[in-house]
């Protein structure tokens, strides 16, 4: 029906007998000039092959034929449909496509329906199975309607599939409260700090024992509080020894250390030790605490005078700060948080 019958019939007849052209055969054909009639047929084959492959089965092909006729499934002319279906199967055979058995079953069903139509009603044989209402025409249409609905449903799923690709879920970054301070070893006691500062002080022990120099006290605790806070504002944490790196004398070390203790007491700082025997790390107390209610002035390290006991210059550790007075050196996160909220 699609082929120009006159020219190509001969070729197709030969082809049918050969059943399948060998690669050599095709190569031979392809070397022919483009104007050669056989070449045209081959091109024709290629085009149709593409078209046939989209049919998922006989029902799919039938639906395609019905759609082409632009009629409702219920109104379709089955005899005409049978003719077209078989023409397609013929075409598939001509083009050497493998025809699935399902197509042949459908073709025979259609032929059966068509043959019955040729007989007047009173002469039609009543097949046993049809007594209980199994009209092959009706059965076929029912099957077509059902298949059509699922095909439509599949199309809807396909739309959903495509839409779903464009939907992005909200995935908040993992909040790492847990690994913050509590995970690190939280209890750095006052003794750990004293040990640490003793190590630093040993640096000066030898120098100062040999020569005795008298000089004015240049450093105050409040200056050092400012210094510590400035360091910690610029970076998240600082190692204990780093704070004393620039210290030039014993007195300066002690001032810095007192500043540290003062800040810990005010719950501005937290000391942690990532692992046993490792260096103590100093960081700002949990951000929640700072945000919760610490005045910004304190936060930035400028302490309002009078609010805090300002120790006299050159004060000894033992004098004003016995270990008991600095309970917050462990800086327990939760208690710190509640305390600030309450105040």
């Amino acid at each position: 029906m699609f082929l120009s019958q006159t020219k190509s019939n001969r070729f197709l007849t030969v082809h049918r007998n050969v059943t399948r052209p060998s690669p050599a055969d095709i190569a031979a054909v392809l070397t022919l000039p483009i104007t050669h009639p056989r070449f045209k047929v081959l091109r024709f084959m290629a085009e149709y092959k593409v078209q046939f492959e989209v049919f998922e089965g006989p029902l799919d092909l039938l639906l395609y034929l019905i759609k082409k006729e632009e009629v409702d499934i219920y109104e379709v002319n089955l005899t005409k449909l049978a003719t077209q279906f078989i023409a397609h199967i013929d075409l598939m055979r001509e083009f050497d496509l493998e025809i699935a058995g399902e197509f042949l079953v459908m073709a025979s069903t259609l032929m059966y329906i068509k043959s019955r139509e040729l007989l007047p009603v009173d002469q039609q044989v009543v097949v046993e199975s049809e007594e209980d209402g199994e009209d092959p025409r009706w059965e076929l249409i029912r099957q077509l309607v059902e298949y059509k609905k699922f095909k439509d449903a599949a199309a809807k799923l396909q739309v959903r599939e495509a839409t779903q690709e464009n939907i992005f879920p909200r995935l908040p970054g993992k909040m790492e409260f847990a690994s913050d301070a509590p995970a690190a070893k939280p209890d750095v006691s006052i003794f750990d700090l004293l040990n640490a500062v003793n190590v630093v002080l040993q640096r000066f022990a030898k120098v100062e024992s040999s020569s005795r120099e008298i000089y004015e006290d240049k450093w105050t605790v409040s200056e050092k509080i400012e210094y510590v806070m400035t360091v910690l504002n610029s970076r998240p944490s600082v190692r204990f020894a780093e704070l004393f790196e620039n210290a030039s004398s014993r007195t300066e070390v002690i001032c810095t250390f007192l500043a540290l203790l003062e800040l810990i007491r005010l719950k501005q700082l937290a000391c942690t030790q990532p692992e046993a025997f490792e260096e103590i790390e100093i960081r700002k107390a949990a951000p929640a605490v700072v945000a919760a209610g610490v005045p910004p002035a304190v936060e930035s390290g400028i302490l309002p005078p009078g609010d805090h006991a300002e120790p006299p210059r050159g004060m000894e550790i033992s004098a004003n700060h016995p270990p008991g007075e600095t309970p917050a050196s462990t800086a327990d996160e939760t208690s710190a948080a509640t305390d600030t909220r309450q105040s």
Partner: protein
Amino acid sequence: MELKFILESLLFSAQKPMSVKELRDVFATAATAEDAEEMATSLKKVKDEDVTAALEMLAGEHSTAARSYRLVCVAGSWQFVTQPEFAPWLKALVGVKARPSRLSQPALETLAIIAYRQPVTRAEVEQIRGVNIDGTMQTLLERGLVESTGRAEVVGRPQLYSTTTLFLEYFGLRGLEDLPAADELRRIVVEKPPAPVTVDPGLATAPPEQLKLENPEAKSENTETPQT
């Protein structure tokens, strides 16, 4: 504080979609905290229906507000997702989602039949599609969209297949009842006309009483009187 806003805050910060049960677990845990407020204690034994109702209300409010994101329930779990139209920018931000290649037409058809008719045997699917489905079934099983869920008590005890949770997630469905036109497709009942359809007028049988496929009235008639 309203329940729905508590839920909103939970879903806003949740790392993964939350089912109603998981949300209730959160309420139970919150109520046992030492400093639990009255509100938290009162929600200790909040009912499933209340949570679901609050979530529905919340989802409704979000869709009315027509924001760039919405609250959805996929496979029973709630989460915030963006609207699809913002995909071009989101793709630039987070990269293209890692998703397997799209399903082929035969695979989609097979999947649709299994989804609506589950549990279903391979033969039943083949009967509807009119073709062999060995290959597509293999694909669907490999991709984890369908699974075997037992055997039919008929001759040969063939395997029954159903869709999986992944199927719901893949298509963004809340549940099987969320499938489009679920009622209609679960059991398509086509009424047989009193007189058989004539295939070729003038040939043999009486003029047909024909049905329109697209006619909604005809459709409803069909579904009302099941063919037995």
